[in-house]
């Protein structure tokens, strides 16, 4: 057989299976795509995002905004919440950690305790979980079996590089450290950093955003140690890159800022009400969910059609489903998880007794959402 013919007849592993796994993600991306009539805006997602952020402020003051989708609950908690989670409304697995340890929640609603750790992070395809404890960093498989461990003091906020998972960044005291995905080559990337989870730029090996103790936002090449850019951004509490690596979201209590990959500030949106507690970019990177705190707390999803999807006191965090169609909102004050569908027909349902479900109590603290994983290739 000649070489050309051999190449023509070559078949990759499990081609039919790969096709079946890929289709839901492709379809989901297609459904998220803007209609043809809105192509102009679609071509410029950064502008759309900036416009959306501007709209966000207006929306919060708008009576019409308060009734979008009829999804707003002003009571403490959603009525008729189910006492148990029978299934997740979208593919993937949810990772939770807190006083009761680290848990995963399967699509059928069943929960598995991985161990006693206080923080955790999915690997890009959900094949492993990096867990942080007072005395070290450990990676475990989804059954909780340890793969490797590093003894370090005061470890927190592990984050995997995506899509390969070949690096894990984490904080140890005031140091930012980076270790290879197999536990080798651990080293300090930066000293005197703030207690904010670092964020890898997806697909760009290996650019890492973090916050210094003095409040500078820095993006650094983790291989060479070279600083790529920096900006003064005050009290940032959360950093997140868009999935395509083109935008960096920096959330502080008073504002959500979007930077380009080269460090140019694209937009700044002050909080519409109380302090911003949490922010999350959708998998497509075109929508931003923000949770604000205080008595007038709310969850707002900005984008082409901004939506205020939930309101109430004592809200917590927000996470997007991997297909970008649902939000999972934690509501510690109501001891609930609230699922809200934000694509297609509006839908909402809630699950109560979340603290008890994950072996926590009101006094010990509410379980933290660590992520809803993953792409079609993993953790489904």
């Amino acid at each position, binding site marked *: *057989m000649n*070489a050309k013919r*051999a*190449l*023509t*007849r*070559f*078949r*990759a*592993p*499990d*081609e*039919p299976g*790969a*096709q*079946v*796994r*890929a289709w*839901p993600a*492709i*379809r*989901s*991306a*297609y459904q998220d*795509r803007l*209609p*043809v009539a809105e192509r102009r805006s*679609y071509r410029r997602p950064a502008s759309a995002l900036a416009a959306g952020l501007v709209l966000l402020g207006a929306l919060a003051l708008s009576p019409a905004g308060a009734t979008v989708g009829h999804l707003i609950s002003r009571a403490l908690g*959603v009525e*008729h*919440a189910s006492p148990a989670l*029978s*299934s*997740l*409304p*979208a*593919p993937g697995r949810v990772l939770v950690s807190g006083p009761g340890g680290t848990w995963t929640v399967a*699509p059928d609603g069943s929960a598995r305790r991985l161990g006693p750790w206080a923080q955790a992070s999915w690997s890009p*395809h959900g094949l492993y979980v990096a867990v942080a404890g007072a005395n070290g960093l450990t990676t475990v498989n989804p059954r909780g079996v340890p793969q490797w461990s590093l003894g370090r003091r005061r470890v927190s906020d592990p984050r995997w590089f995506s*899509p*390969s998972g*070949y*690096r894990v960044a984490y904080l140890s005291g005031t140091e930012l450290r980076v270790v290879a995905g*197999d536990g*080798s*080559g651990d080293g300090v990337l930066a000293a005197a950093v703030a207690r904010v989870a670092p964020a890898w730029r997806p*697909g760009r*090996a*290996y650019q890492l955003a973090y916050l210094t103790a003095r409040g500078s936002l820095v993006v650094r090449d983790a*291989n060479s140690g070279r600083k790529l850019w920096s900006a003064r951004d005050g009290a940032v509490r959360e950093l997140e890159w868009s999935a395509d690596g083109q935008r960096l979201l920096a959330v502080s209590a008073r504002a959500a800022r979007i930077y380009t990959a080269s460090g140019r500030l694209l937009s700044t949106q002050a909080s519409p009400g109380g302090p911003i507690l949490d922010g999350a970019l959708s998998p497509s990177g075109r929508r931003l969910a923000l949770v604000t705190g205080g008595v007038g707390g709310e969850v707002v999803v900005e984008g082409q059609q901004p939506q205020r999807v939930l309101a109430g006191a004592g809200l917590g965090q927000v996470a997007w489903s991997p297909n970008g*169609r*649902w939000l999972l909102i934690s509501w510690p004050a109501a001891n609930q998880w609230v699922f809200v*569908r934000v694509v297609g027909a509006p*839908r*909402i*349902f809630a699950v109560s007794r979340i603290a008890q479900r994950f072996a926590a109590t009101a006094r010990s603290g509410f379980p933290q959402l660590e992520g809803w994983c993953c*792409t*079609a*290739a993993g953790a*489904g």
Partner: protein
Amino acid sequence: MTAVAQPVAATGPLPRSRSRRPRSERSLIRGALAGSEADLELLFRRHWPRAYRAAFLIVRDHAAAEDIAQEAFVAAIRRLDRFDRRRPFAPWLGAIVANRAIDWARARSSRREVAEPGPEPASPAGPPASRYSEEVLAALAGLSPEHRAVVVLRYVLEYTPGEIARALELPRGTVNSRLRRGLDALESRLREVEAR
């Protein structure tokens, strides 16, 4: 408030195509642009296998190849309205796949975290080709990602050398020399197999 939860993404086998007559690619793209998910699905089914195969041959890691092919499709969908429908879809998608695969392979080799794995076994589901598939992988392993990409674009995705030059932004002469070197390596390896 209602308490309703329904899965929204299909995870089972893809439904069969509803259309009996083969649709032209241009028609499928037009349909997908107009909002027809069925047309998008046909387009996907038509182009997925080779996109995934090409990515796998370049990166030699099936999980990464799945991601790359999937991301390439998503990127293509997002840019579909900018696509020139007078041109064939496959080379456009293939360029996205090849460039992403090269980037991924370069990133992996820039600092290896784990020992470089040997090539993964090719599909056992291709009996006539399976004996050679392993050899194809082994032969390509000796080439750089850039060389592999040129060979794959030419003989798996069936680009012309000119199209490869444009897609990878290479001089035409470089494309030809890389093709020659890739084919020589493959043929040498396959001759060894034949001789056993």
